């Protein structure tokens, strides 16, 4: 195997472009996953079956079909009757939507872990429903689930190359394009290293967070 630093130099501009896209997809995708997941989790606790049932069906469906298929669906099928979006936007929505069904489960466990007595105290004080959620239940629930949410951010990072298939050229997409054009392989290695360099410190950070949150709760 021969390693050519000149090839590396040639690839780097495209690598930085790809990295920027990866991080953008990751940050925005995570925000969508965090927000939507919470919506799903709360909807599944609704008193109304008309809300509970469709949400459960939808999240089960999304969780149990491949992300790759969902990305193709969003990019090629949805525009036939709905909005058509850029590859990056589609990728972000796809990642966010897919992972929201996992974060929903995380939130659900977190909310379920808040003792029944907290709900009862909120009732006894006559707190309005919204206030009970925002001031009492969610602050306690989210504290418990931060580490688990973090793990899904890392999982999403590792799934992010999939958005390349619909043309959102993040790190891996750039590497693939570059390698095919130049008949070289260095770019793949660089991207592989880049994933570790991002993911490993992130998982250490999550572990740290976990220890601190558990200690003080």
């Amino acid at each position, binding site marked *: 195997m021969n390693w050519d630093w000149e090839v590396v130099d040639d690839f780097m501009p495209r690598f930085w472009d790809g990295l920027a896209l990866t991080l953008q997809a990751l940050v925005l995708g995570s925000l969508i996953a965090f927000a939507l997941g919470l919506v799903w989790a709360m909807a599944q606790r609704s008193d109304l079956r008309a809300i509970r049932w469709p949400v459960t069906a939808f999240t089960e469906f999304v969780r149990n079909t491949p992300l790759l298929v969902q990305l193709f669906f969003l990019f090629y099928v949805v525009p036939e009757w709905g909005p058509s979006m850029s590859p990056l936007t589609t990728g972000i929505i796809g990642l966010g939507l897919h992972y929201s069904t996992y974060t929903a489960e995380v939130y659900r466990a977190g909310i379920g872990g808040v003792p029944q007595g907290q709900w009862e105290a909120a009732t006894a004080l006559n*707190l309005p429903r919204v206030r009970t959620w925002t001031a009492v239940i969610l602050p*306690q629930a989210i504290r418990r689930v931060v580490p688990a949410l973090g793990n899904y951010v890392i999982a999403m990072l590792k799934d992010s190359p999939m958005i390349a298939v619909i043309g959102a050229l993040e790190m891996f997409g750039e590497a693939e394009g570059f390698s095919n054009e130049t008949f070289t392989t260095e770019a793949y290695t660089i991207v592989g290293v880049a994933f570790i360099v991002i993911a490993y410190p992130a998982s250490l950070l999550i572990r740290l967070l976990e220890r601190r949150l558990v200690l003080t709760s």
Partner: protein
Amino acid sequence: MSSPADTPQTPETTDSPRENGGNGESRANGSELVRFTNVTKRFGDVTVLDRLDFHVETGKHVTLIGPSGSGKTTILRLLMTLLTPDEGTITVDGDHLNHEERDGKLVKAGEKHVREVRKKIGMVFQQFNLFPNMKVLRNVTEAPVHVLGLSKDEAVERAKGLIELVGLSEHLDKYPSQLSGGQQQRVAIARALAMRPQVLLLDEVTSALDPELVAGVLDVLRDIAHTTDITMLCVTHEMGFARDISDCVMMFDQGRVVEFGPPDKMFSEPEHERTREFLSTVL
């Protein structure tokens, strides 16, 4: 408004706790504040309350005693709307708790109605149930601000007064986890009182405490019982405390009232064998 509560159909086991103030219309001392009419509550096949009738007059302190499983706590939880009765009606200060009148008929109450009536009731729990994510002061101001609509300053002033009453002024800025069980329970008492309820429900408030912390909590409650005109409904195993603060002690067994009377009589010369038996196990 509510006519069902006025019909004098109290069975022999249950009349007014202590000197029946009649059915005066005024809501001053002596009038009826809480009434259970024919209340039945089942959990699965187990009937916890069996067509229970009783009422509590304004300003009275009533202690519910009886073996575990006799339905005492269920009564408090029904009043706090943490449970709903399977049959019968409950009124608080003349208003139906779980029902409302529409076109002259009693129907299941909507959320708005329940919230309105629930304002009159406060509860202190066995497990304190303070909000662990809020400091002591905010535990006490949270509901006055967001339910009663007090300004922040008013709520803080009210809260500080009550926290002083329960002897915890130096702990305003602590989280519940930094307090002992007894201190937490005293905060919970202040939190309930901050809503100025007409009825305070005390559900075995010292049962989860280490023995040396019980006295502090009971002292606070004694103080409140003797210096305010709040109505209390209290489930406790502390018979000394019950004797001190109660106007009336009601003995429950298997979802029914066995007998009731002033504490002196109940503790020294109960009429029913069942009461004697129970008291001999706890005194």
